[in-house]
């Protein structure tokens, strides 16, 4: 059994172990251990991956494992990773680990909470390791559905509405996706070969252009819904605002990346001609996403809404960068996924912790928090700076790469879109600094705030884990960049060959 299967096995075992716990302390301890092991495993995977690569292994996918599952359909349990998946797996493990500690004090039905959360993560891990479209789709849906219960039961505000909206919109996306996948499957046969769901095999042939024109938009939109593609992003602000802390972290931090990842790994990689033909539509939509999300964040009063709109903006940038279809921009897109995943998780964790003290998320009812909870406030500022792209933190590396890549296109359309998207940097600075100013600085608005205690140990652990990763990427982006770049080559080649660029 390969190392990759353990990524799905460990969450499963953790869930079973939680079932046998007696009280809430045991349950959270077991969850922490399980996700801790998962984090170590992800670390080992990164290390193993880098060693393999430096040893000169140039296979596209490493640590592959292939077990026949349904011979009639040629469905396999096929797993394997390249640098991008490894990076995403590491991101997921970090965010999950931080998320468990951020929800350390969940009281209500706490076992069920951890079970749902870990079940969701196992779907995410499974998605990133899958090479077979069928299992990939299976894990994709598995990652979405626990969301309903997580938001519906443990959420705040109009949670039932938000949970239903989020679930239906995401599953609606997967309805399109399913047709897209079936369409790819039906056109996947190489000469004399049976139909296949295997990504790598399908990439070797080219799907007829007529089929691509029909199935590319279905697949792209299917994944795009999860990547908060305008105008299908509306689940995101409501969903994130209503979700409990750890769920917001995991959802904005990791689940939305499933969308971006799927967009290039499935839609663009397998159907490059259609991707080129239709890119302009989606470039316009993502440009709107980026700018609209940023402006949306300016006018919101609720901390979570601010961050949710900011996620729409940042995830829009991911898909925008992917659609630029050159190496630099795509490299930036992956960096942006990881950077945004860490950043937004940190934001949501902090918002949860602040909310736990102030019991309000309205920024106008708060103020001067820097004086009473300095640790959390400082971390908040750092996260904010990362988000607006300050050099030295992960956000800068990612956005810089994206814009450099996007400017490599010389035609007017791409130039204009890029310039519009670039303005979002300024707007981002506005909403981040506005929140920092109102929330953290200034006089203390409420007498009760003086009694606040600063971060407890588990809160510190949760935030520092994320913060370290953000700083690490910001200061030494090269190791991550190298890991990604090698894996982007086949995708770029596939995209380039078809247009003769």
């Amino acid at each position: 059994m390969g190392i990759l299967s353990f990524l799905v096995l460990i969450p499963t075992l953790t869930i079973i172990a939680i079932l046998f716990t007696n009280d809430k302390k045991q349950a959270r301890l077991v969850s922490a251990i399980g996700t801790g092991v998962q984090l170590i495993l992800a670390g080992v995977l990164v290390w193993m991956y880098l060693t393999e690569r430096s040893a000169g292994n140039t296979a596209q996918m490493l640590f592959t494992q292939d077990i026949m599952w349904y011979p009639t359909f040629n469905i396999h349990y096929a797993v394997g990773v390249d640098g991008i998946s490894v990076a995403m797996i590491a991101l997921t493990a970090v965010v999950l680990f931080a998320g468990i500690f951020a929800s350390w004090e969940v009281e209500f039905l706490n076992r069920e909470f951890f079970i749902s959360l870990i079940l969701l993560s196992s779907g995410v891990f499974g998605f990133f390791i899958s090479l077979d479209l069928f299992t990939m789709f299976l894990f994709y849906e598995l990652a979405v559905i626990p969301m309903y219960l997580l938001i519906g039961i443990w959420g705040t505000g109009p949670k039932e509405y938000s949970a239903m909206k989020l679930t239906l919109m995401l599953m609606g996306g997967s309805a399109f996706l399913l047709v897209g996948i079936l369409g790819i499957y039906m056109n996947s046969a190489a000469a004399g070969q049976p139909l296949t769901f295997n990504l790598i095999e399908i990439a070797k042939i080219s799907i007829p252009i007529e089929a691509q024109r029909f199935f590319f938009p279905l697949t792209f939109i299917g994944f795009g819904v999860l990547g908060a593609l305008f105008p299908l992003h509306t689940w995101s602000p409501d969903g994130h605002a209503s979700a409990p802390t750890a769920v917001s972290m995991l959802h904005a931090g990791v689940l939305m990346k499933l969308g971006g990842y799927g967009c290039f790994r499935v839609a663009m990689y397998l159907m490059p001609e259609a991707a080129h033909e239709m890119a302009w539509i989606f470039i316009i939509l993502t440009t709107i996403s980026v700018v609209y999300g940023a402006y949306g964040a300016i006018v919101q009063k609720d901390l979570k809404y601010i961050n949710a709109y900011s996620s729409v903006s940042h995830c829009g940038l991911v898909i925008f960068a992917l659609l630029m279809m050159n190496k630099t921009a795509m490299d930036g897109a992956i960096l942006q996924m990881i950077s945004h995943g860490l950043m937004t998780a940190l934001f949501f964790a902090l918002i949860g912790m602040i909310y736990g003290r102030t019991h309000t998320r309205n920024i106008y009812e708060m103020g001067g928090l820097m004086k009473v909870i300095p640790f959390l406030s400082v971390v908040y500022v750092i996260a904010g700076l990362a988000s607006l792209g300050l050099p030295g933190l992960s956000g800068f590396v990612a956005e810089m790469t994206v814009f450099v890549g996007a400017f490599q296109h010389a035609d007017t359309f791409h130039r204009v879109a890029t310039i519009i998207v670039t303005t979002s940097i300024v707007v981002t600075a506005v909403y981040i600094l506005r929140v920092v100013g109102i929330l953290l600085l200034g006089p203390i608005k409420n007498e009760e705030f003086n009694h606040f205690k600063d971060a407890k140990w588990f809160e510190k652990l949760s935030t520092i884990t994320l913060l370290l990763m953000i700083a690490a990427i910001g200061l030494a982006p090269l190791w991550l960049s190298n890991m990604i770049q090698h894996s982007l080559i086949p995708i770029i080649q596939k995209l380039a060959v078809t247009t003769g660029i």
Partner: protein
Amino acid sequence: MNLNSFLLMRHEIVLIAVALIILIAEIFTSEQNKGRIRGLAIILFALNTIIGFFPATTGTLFGGMFTTIPLHIVVKNILNIGTLIVLIQSNAWLKTEENSDKFPEFYVLLISTLVGMFYMISAGDFLMFYLGLELATIPLAALVAYDRFRSQSAEGGIKLILSSAFSSGIMLYGISMIYGMYGSIYFDMLSPAMAMNSLTILAFIFFFAGMAFKISLVPFHLWAADVYEGAPVNITSYLSVISKGAAVFILTVILFKVFPTISDLWQKVVWVIAVMTMTIGNLFAIRQQNLKRFIAFSSISQAGFFLLGVIGGNEMGMTAIVYYMLVYIFSNLGVFGVIAIISNKSGKENMDDYNGLYHTNPMLSLTMMLALFSLAGIPPVAGFFGKFFLFTAAAQKGFYILVLIATINTIISLYYYLLIVKAMFINKSENPIPYFKSDFYTKLGLGICIAGLVIVGFASGIWETISKLAFGM
């Protein structure tokens, strides 16, 4: 022809034997020991189910009226399993005071309908098919009216018998046209002779309309909700799962075998009916408060999904139908099992009554949730695989738009299934349904369903077995 060749009908003969033993046992047991018949019936039926899996001979009987091929045996076994679950689930209900003097009839009636379905499945001509169909329907009407002092139940029985008599009439009219034109009622002789002309089309339409009544496809579905609501819960589950499954199977067989020459035509008809059935069933289900009505409409829309396998018109479609039948048995009987327990113990059948159920009955709620997710096609439970393969079967023939409509419909259905999940897990209630201690049979029935839901999808061998046999069609 010798006695040995009757062994082709082993499934039917064993079933009849079970029914007879129960009848005789009733005569020879005293009033105090009558309760033991329930246990006896379940054991006998379980034995029958096991015997069903023994290797069986295949061939034809009565000059082609009755045929047995491996796929028939698989379908019969699947229906046996489903009926066994229904019998186990209805045990608690049959124990109640009001049923104490009449429960042996329940078994006999139920088994006769199953025998009817078996004959229908194995039919090699329209006559045997029709006989089986009637044998399957008439005892069912009696079962629907089993709660004879409840006016709804009696009403449901009358509605079922009238509408099925009506639909039988329509269907027979279609069959008589076919006989008039081609001079035969044997499936094998009809298919080469069949030609595309207006009378054949008319005959097909009549035949299809009659079958659509039985399967409760839109626009012939209006009887279903009232009958499902009126019938006792366990009968409703039997109606919606077993009898629907058998009817869909035989419809597919006849479409493949008798009408291949006009397949362009019936594919169009099935396309339209499938879209209407899925959509209208779903839209009506959203508005229901009574859970039995709710499931009635949900199973109407599920019948639409079956049609996705029918329209493929190939082995993969056939396999997908049989496979989904198995999945559907576990899913729907899981839902009905929970509804039946709650309805029998507390008399509550409305969705609002389920508020806060998770806090009082966690296991029941979890079972219900898994079963509902399976109906909606959510992984990792079996429904996901069943739906996916049905969609693949339809996509293989290029019906992508139909598949898209179907997947969108699964999302609509997910919405109303989630409403129940929401009631159980999220909503708070002032006076929730109290905790029930379930007896052995109840647990067993739900346990089989859960095991089926979890295992059927991952064990690819089940699909592969059915698939291998379907290629002999």
